[in-house]
């Protein structure tokens, strides 16, 4: 087959008849963990048993009555496994294998909706039939994620059917290098991996280099703990990443490309490899890409577990077979990168946006988002929110909209929504900072976040409720960066270690006022004395929690008290005699027998016996246990 397939599968040409009935089972990581594969198997059996003419393959013309396929992450991970039925636009939640027979007989055969499997909006108690009335989806604008969740990620034909590879073909056969770069520059697209550097400018710097050999690398080493946007795009729509990569290669005149995927994402690696192989077979990649007479090749590489490799120059070192240590810039990779040749490195999501810019033009792209940060951004919304999952919203959307409306509000320890439970959001992972109640109406974009000491980063958004100790959170991130520091710069290597031990002193009640002062000084020194982004941003969580939650640090240091009771060394659990009903549940649960009291009378905790495990607080239904 050749590149002509693009014409045969023109989306306007195919599927002239009525739309085919479809059952799409989400096979993202979350849903698979909840048993999605068994649900698919059950569907196969039940559909066949019902005598329905079914296919699992994509065909441009609807030849069967029903198509059953798995998709990439549909985003609403909390409610998985998810089953979407089209064209009815029904979304069933938490589907178990036992539910499949009912879906087949009621919905597929009978045309009725199974009410009990629908999502119930906790605010209105309304049963929502599909994504058009679920608030989680309603408030989003999905472009990068649009096809994730409907198409079969392993079908190149289906991607083409949805207009795929039209942009790559246009860029390679009809546009000059200058035109491509100009369009990207005009769109104002900024790198979605962290820093937000203008993509057009990066490309222009590499394009103007006079060198016969150039490289493009797709940065899919999503190391930020608490973020899984890139993973979902690669698993859900791998061809969109590859297409963007091809456009980038064409724009700067590169013939060799790499996709550097994090090793912890085996499914993403497999899907990307499959996409590359299929594109090769189709003639989109190879010695004569799209019949252009020019070579374009791609190789998928697996990372080996080093956070620092997300940094451009460290990633280059890793691909060259070295330890992944960054080197000073300039020269920038666009001038001298992989093997000393001009190289551009773009994030997965950036490349997926490139496809849309080339397809629809810079002006359409600019319609959403803010002037300085145009377009949409995916965020991984996790932590103490009712709806965890993957979302995509235009830049400039407020934090309130994201966390309280799309996220459905903050939850307590038991997962119940608490209207006033919001404490903070950590954005940008270990390099980012926290946002508090006062930032709820802050529009999220690159510049507004930088002004308040945080950053967009790759887009991990971790919501935290009032029971979260901010000093422990700072310690958590410092522990991470300390371990991931590559060791090249002294201030990063030793400084993060010192910062961590100071945080430990605070948490364990050994700190003095001096500790806080030296911690702040050292944090600034590490920022200044480190070469790469990891070290430069490593102190951010400490500085930002110090800025917004100074009182919590003070409580730990001066009063030897952790306000949330999370720090075990400082916790002094006690039972509120007013709230305690004397139900004896805590006394029975206590592993060391530290709780005593008579039935129906207030209980007491023996501070000497207590090991501060928190089991009593978890058991108590009346929230009578305080300080742990």
């Amino acid at each position, binding site marked *: 087959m050749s590149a002509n397939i693009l014409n045969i599968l023109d989306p306007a040409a195919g599927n002239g008849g009525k739309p085919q009935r479809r059952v799409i089972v989400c096979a993202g990581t979350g849903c698979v963990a909840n048993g999605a594969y068994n649900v698919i198997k059950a569907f196969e059996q039940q559909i066949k048993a019902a005598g329905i003419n079914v296919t699992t393959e994509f065909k441009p013309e609807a030849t069967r009555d029903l198509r059953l396929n798995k998709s990439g992450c549909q985003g609403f991970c909390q409610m998985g496994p998810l089953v979407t039925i089209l064209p009815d636009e029904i979304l069933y939640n938490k589907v178990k294998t036992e539910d499949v027979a009912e879906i087949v007989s009621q919905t597929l055969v009978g045309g009725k909706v199974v009410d009990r499997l629908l999502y119930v909006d906790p605010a209105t108690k309304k049963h929502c039939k599909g994504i058009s009335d679920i608030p989680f989806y309603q408030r989003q604008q999905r472009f990068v994620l649009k096809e994730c969740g409907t198409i079969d990620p392993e079908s190149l034909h289906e991607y083409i059917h949805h207009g795929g590879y039209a942009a790559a073909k246009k860029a390679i056969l009809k546009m000059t290098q200058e035109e491509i770069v100009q369009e990207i520059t005009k769109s104002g697209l900024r790198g979605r991996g962290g820093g937000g550097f203008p993509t057009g400018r990066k490309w222009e710097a590499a394009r103007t280099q006079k060198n016969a050999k150039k490289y493009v690398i797709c940065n899919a080493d999503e190391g930020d703990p*608490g*973020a899984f946007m890139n993973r979902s795009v690669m698993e859900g729509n791998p061809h969109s990443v590859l297409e963007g990569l091809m456009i980038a290669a064409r724009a700067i005149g590169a013939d060799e490309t790499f996709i550097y995927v994090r090793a912890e994402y085996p499914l993403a690696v497999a899907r990307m490899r499959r996409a590359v192989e299929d594109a090769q077979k189709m003639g989109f990649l190879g010695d004569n890409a799209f019949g252009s007479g020019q070579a374009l090749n791609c190789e998928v590489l697996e990372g080996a577990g080093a956070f620092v490799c997300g940094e451009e120059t460290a990633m280059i070192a890793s691909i060259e077979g070295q330890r*992944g240590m960054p080197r000073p810039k300039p020269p920038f990779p666009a001038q001298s990168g992989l093997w000393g040749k001009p190289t551009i490195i773009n994030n997965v999501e950036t490349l997926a946006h490139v496809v849309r810019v080339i397809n629809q033009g810079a002006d359409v792209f600019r319609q959403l988002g803010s002037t300085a940060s145009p377009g949409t951004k995916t965020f991984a919304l996790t932590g103490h929110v009712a709806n965890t999952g993957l979302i995509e919203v235009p830049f400039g959307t407020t934090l309130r909209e994201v966390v309280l409306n799309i996220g459905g509000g903050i939850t307590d320890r038991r997962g119940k929504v608490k209207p006033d439970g919001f404490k903070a959001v950590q954005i940008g992972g270990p390099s980012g900072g926290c946002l508090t109640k006062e930032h709820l109406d802050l529009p999220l974009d690159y510049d507004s976040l930088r002004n308040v000491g945080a950053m967009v980063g790759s887009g991990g958004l971790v919501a935290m409720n009032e029971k979260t100790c901010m000093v422990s959170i700072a310690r958590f991130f410092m522990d991470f960066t300390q371990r991931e520091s590559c060791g090249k710069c002294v201030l990063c290597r030793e400084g993060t270690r010192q910062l961590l031990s100071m945080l430990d002193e605070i948490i364990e009640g050994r700190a003095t006022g001096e500790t806080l002062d030296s911690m702040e000084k050292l944090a600034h020194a590490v920022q200044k004395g480190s070469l790469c982004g990891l070290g430069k941003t490593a102190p951010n969580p400490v500085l930002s929690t110090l800025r917004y939650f100074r009182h919590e640090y003070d409580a730990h240091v001066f009063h030897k008290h952790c306000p949330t009771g999370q720090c075990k060394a400082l916790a002094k659990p006690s039972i509120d005699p007013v709230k305690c009903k004397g139900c004896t549940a805590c006394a029975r649960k206590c592993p060391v027998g530290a709780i005593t009291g008579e039935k129906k009378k207030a209980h007491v905790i023996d501070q000497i016996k207590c090991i501060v495990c928190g089991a009593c607080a978890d058991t108590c239904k009346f929230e009578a246990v305080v300080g742990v």
Partner: protein
Amino acid sequence: MRHPLTPDGNGRKFVKVFTILEKHGRKPSRLVPILQAVQEEYRYLPEEVLTYVATALDVSPARVFGVATFYSHFAIKPKGKHIVRLCDGTACHVKDSIPILDAIRKRLKLEGKKATTDDMMFTVETVACLGACGLAPVVVVDDQVHGQMTPENGVKLVEEIIAKEQS
């Protein structure tokens, strides 16, 4: 032409390594994928294999050890039969992942820095993020993801394996 490093009778255990090296054209630039393939084969990176790789690629053993110890994915000590990985990414951490780790380690009598049980049955480790944050906290046992874990259920997962191994 016969390559000087072609394994003879004594070097039989290196046959697999030899094939891997050939596949990657004996290029030092392919060191990371080579070590990944070796680890796939042996489940860890034995010292003598690392030395062999260094000689075959004509680079110093220090370079190979440097790379092997730099990346957390590489193990230079053998791991247990079953690998329990607890996600301690931010999302899992704020949802109390550490008590799960403590409970599992306690059940397996792992103390201090020890990660592998004496009978080589279990290795317990933490990972920074598995990308299943929607299901936090997450425990992965032998590549099977278990979401929304609690300390009790974590211990139960381990007990199930122990029971299976004993029967």
